[in-house]
């Protein structure tokens, strides 16, 4: 084989060792791999949601106000937090750790705001009567089809499970960023970049959850209000 013949002339030519072959540190690569695997956990839940939604009568109960307005503000918070994280990482890449810390604190602020808003939204739904195992009575009567098929009680189950797991990730991220902010002077730039990777990933998950859970369940005809 000609490739082998060529190899003879280049002992260890293609890989000399001593540096990371793909120009990425251990921890950064590790975080990317974690993101890949975690996105599969979310994919499993979202595929399960799609499967159950397709095989059931699915209620579409979210009114424009408050649910969609609320969730849009939440989305805005998360998007803003991604922006502030970008500024934070950028400040860190210039070596300005103090400024980086300020941006990371802003990121944490938006993240916590997201969680607070989300809990208000949860509380709102729970007080309306949504449970992991049942729908409020007036939802059931509104969304029963003309041929008598009842809407699926799995609405609450999928909603609370998927948004709950996402909220858990945001909360974990806020704690993670707090540690990064506290130790920012001791950390290398790459470590701050890695925390940014995680944060952007959590945002990206929301960009799937928001349309699939909220927008697809908008009460378009205003059935519940009638």
């Amino acid at each position: 084989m000609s490739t082998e013949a060529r190899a003879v002339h280049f002992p260890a030519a293609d890989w000399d060792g001593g540096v990371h072959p793909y120009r990425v540190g251990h921890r950064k690569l590790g975080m990317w791999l974690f993101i890949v695997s975690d996105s599969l956990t979310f994919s499993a839940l979202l595929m399960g949601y799609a499967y159950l939604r397709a095989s059931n009568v699915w209620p579409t109960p979210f009114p424009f106000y408050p649910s969609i307005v609320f969730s849009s503000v939440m989305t805005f918070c998360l998007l803003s937090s991604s922006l502030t994280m970008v500024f934070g990482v950028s400040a860190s890449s210039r070596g300005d750790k103090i400024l980086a810390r300020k941006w990371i604190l802003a990121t944490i602020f938006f993240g916590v705001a997201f969680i607070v808003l989300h809990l208000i939204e949860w509380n709102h739904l729970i007080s309306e009567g949504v449970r992991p195992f049942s729908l409020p009575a007036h939802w059931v009567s509104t969304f029963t089809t003309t041929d008598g098929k009842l809407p699926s009680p799995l609405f609450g189950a999928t909603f609370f499970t998927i948004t709950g797991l996402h909220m858990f990730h945001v909360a974990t991220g806020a704690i993670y960023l707090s540690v990064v902010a506290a130790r920012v002077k001791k950390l290398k730039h790459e470590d701050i970049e890695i925390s940014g990777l995680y944060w952007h990933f959590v945002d990206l998950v929301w960009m799937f959850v928001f349309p699939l859970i909220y927008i697809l369940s908008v009460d378009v005809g205003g059935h519940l209000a009638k």
Partner: protein
Amino acid sequence: MSVETHEAVHRHEPPTSFIRKYIFSLDHKVIGIQYILLALVAVIVGMAMSVLMRMNLSWPGTNWPILATLFPGGAPGGVINPEFYLSLVTMHGTIMVFFVLTTAPQGGFGNYFLPIQIGAEDMAFPVLNMLSFWVTLVGFIVILSAIFFSGSASTIGPIGGWTGYAPLSALGQIAGPGQGMGMNLWIISIAIFCVGSLLGALNFITTLLNMRTRGMSLMRMPLTCWAWFTTAVLALLSFPVLLGGGILLLLDRLAGTSFFIPGGLYVSGILSGTNPSFPVHTGGSPILWQHLFWFFGHPEVYIAILPGMGATSHILSTFARKPVFGYRAMVFAIFAIGLLGFFVWGHHMFISGMSPYSAMTFSILTLSIGVPSAVKTFNWLGTLWGARIRFTTPMLFAIGFVSLFVAGGITGLVLGQTSLDLPMHDTYFVLAHFHLVMGVASIFGMFAATYFWFPKMFGRMMSESLGKIHFWITFVGVYCIFVPMHVMGLVGMPRRYAQFTEYTFLTRLHPLVVFVSVVAIITVLTQFLFYFNLIWSIFKGKKAGANPWDATTLEWTTASPPPHDNFAGVLPVVYRGPYEFAVPGAPNDFVMQTEPETETERVGGNGHNGHRH
């Protein structure tokens, strides 16, 4: 951009305290041995359970006084009841698949030898590595406890098979014995195991990509490293899906959701929703659980077998004293098997009621796995062809692996076809198929690996004569156990039944059932020879040098056992591929990977050296 050298990042001094050295160790070698010990304990538990099951099948009503004491609910008066039999089935499967076939090949041998074979001093994340072992151990303790926490007045473990099919597994106590606390613990144990495996997989991939030594290009890695790498990728992508499914199943049981529970169920005489003990459930899909489970479950089968394939390739080449036939094809075949493994999960679900069109697709994809599997098999045969084979114990087990892989794999082609699978599903034919190919074959891979690498791990050889007795009895034994099971399956004997005494069409099989049980007991007892050999050889075995097998890869360049940082502070430099045996003109019949090229090679070139990538 991080460009610091390996040494600067990962130099750590050997710890001195006992706890840091042997218990909470960060050394990948110690962690590897911890994983192997865990598997050695777990496999005894699993084997004991299989013996109990065989006894119950062939001599129904056998009285075990000790069982009456240990499991008053499961074996009242010492006689195993059918529920306890089913919980044994569940525990045997779960413990064997998760805590033996997943821990020993990957967590054990992978942990120990992947860093050494690529010339690294340790794994990329030593702390994560330690955590992944301890998390896995917690999972093992939880699964063992499951059998003792099954609710009121009963010591029957979880019942559901290792697949935990819904709705049985999702309903809770109402569904009958074995569906109480034990089932919750079963799910929690699996979830814990998922986390441990994810941490391990992340570590393996990072280590392999980032920490190869000077000259160790991807195509110069031993095939073992390729196998561990592919296995880690499979684990990284499949365990999170099981984790997701496990969360949903647990919510079904504890939070009253109905992800996997359809409406209108009539269980234990109660219609769903008509009694507070069985609240209303509707809208869920048991098939969804099967999809989520098997999306993980099929790659899991390859997680079990791929490291065995890697070890077999490595060992066949070493003792055939020939380069691996078609190294590059072997690499691509490993990857092809791993990749296809993600698209065939539906072949476990042909009778689930899914669309026949998707069954057709899954069937075709399943049969196509035969292609890379055949590439590997023929390359193994090509490696052996015309070789002057050294029939050492590891070599015998490696050849045994090839034999079992072919024998078990052939029936995979039968079961992969929908029309044939329909009658054979859930019979002993399936049982025989997967025990041969993923159970026994992987175990043979691990036996081969143990006999092969033992001298490196402990500085002493294992006894060859004991090893050969162990091999021959085990090899003949497993065929005598599993070949008759194919026949039983063809006759129509169903899996998981506690007894067959009431089925007249199966009574004529009873002598065969007894034969299998007798052989199984003999084979299980023979395994204690292996345990004895292990322990005896650690203290009394013949001293081994650095390279007792005249092998070529990096682990044989360092001392036996290797020092704390593997290469005593000097990182090896690699000049050639991993399997340079019988190189024309070379002074020995093997050339180490670290050996620089000679002038004659530079001019003349020779067969098999470092492929470029």
